[in-house]
C-alpha cells in the first residue's frame, strides 16, 4: 500500500488548503522591480524607460509611472540602473481593476 494512501487514511485528510505552507519555488520566480525613489534621477529614469522592452515604464515630470500589468519581469531596468532597482519579490498580483496595477513612483534623487 503506498505510503501517502496509508497516511491519508490515518489522518482523515486527503487534501490541503491553499496555501498549506510557503512554496519553496516562490523564491526563484522573477518578480517585478521595486524602485529606490531617493536614488532615482530624471536621467536615470530616462535610461530605464529606454531599456524597457515593453510599455511598463514611462516618466511624467517627476514621477516614474510603472505599469505592473505590462511588466514582464525581464530585469533590463535593473541592468540599466542596478543602484536604484531591486526585485520586489511580489508575484501574487491579481487585481480586479486594471488601474490599481499602475503605480506612481516619485523621483526624489534630484531633490537637494
Amino acid at each position: 500500500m503506498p505510503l501517502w494512501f496509508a497516511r491519508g487514511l490515518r489522518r482523515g485528510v486527503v487534501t490541503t488548503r491553499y496555501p498549506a505552507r510557503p512554496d519553496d519555488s516562490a523564491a526563484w520566480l522573477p518578480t517585478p522591480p521595486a524602485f529606490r525613489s531617493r536614488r532615482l534621477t530624471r536621467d536615470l529614469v530616462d535610461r530605464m524607460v529606454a531599456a524597457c522592452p515593453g510599455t511598463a515604464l514611462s516618466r511624467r515630470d517627476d514621477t516614474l509611472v510603472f505599469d505592473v500589468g505590462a511588466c514582464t519581469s525581464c530585469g533590463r531596468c535593473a541592468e540599466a540602473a542596478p543602484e536604484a532597482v531591486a526585485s520586489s519579490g511580489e508575484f501574487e498580483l491579481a487585481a480586479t481593476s486594471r488601474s490599481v496595477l499602475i503605480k506612481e513612483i516619485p523621483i526624489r534623487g534630484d531633490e537637494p
Partner: protein
Amino acid sequence: MTPSLDEAEAARRLRDTIAAQFGRSLHIRTLDTGSCAVCEQEIRLLSAPHYDLHRLGFFFTPAPRHADLLLVTGPMVRAFDVAARKTYEAMPGPKVVVATGACALGGVYPKDPFVHGDVGQVLPVDVWIPGCPPSPLALLHGLGVAVGRLAEKTPGLTFIADGGQG
C-alpha cells in the same frame, strides 16, 4: 455615476451569490488568443500534483457551455474576434473573465491592424493577472481572487523599496 444604495446592496448580494456558487466548484475554459504558449504551460502545470488545482474545486473543461470562468491568454489577435465572441456568448451566466499574462494586459503588443492589444478591448474582464508568464502560484491567487476566496494584494503595494509615499 455613483450607484444608489439599493444598487450597491444588489451588487453586494450578487457578489456573495457568485462566491457561494463558484466558491467550491468552478469550471474553467482556457482561451488562447495568440499567446506564445508559455502561459498555457503554466496553466497546464496547475493540474500537476505539486499544485493540484482540483483539490480546491477548480476544473478545466473543454466546452464553453460547461464553463463558469474564461481564462484568456494572448494579445487578442483580430483573426480571433468571432471565436472569442462565440466562446463568451456560449458560456452560461454568471460568468467571469480573467485576463492572464502581460500580453493580455496590453504590455507586450501595441494596438495595430493585427491585434487589439489587450483583452479588455473585446471582453469584459473581471480579474487581471500580471506576469510573463504568471507562475502557477500567481494563477492560483488570481483564481482565488476571481471567486472571492482570496484578497487582492496589489492595491497595498507601492513598488517603492525605500519607504512609503511622500
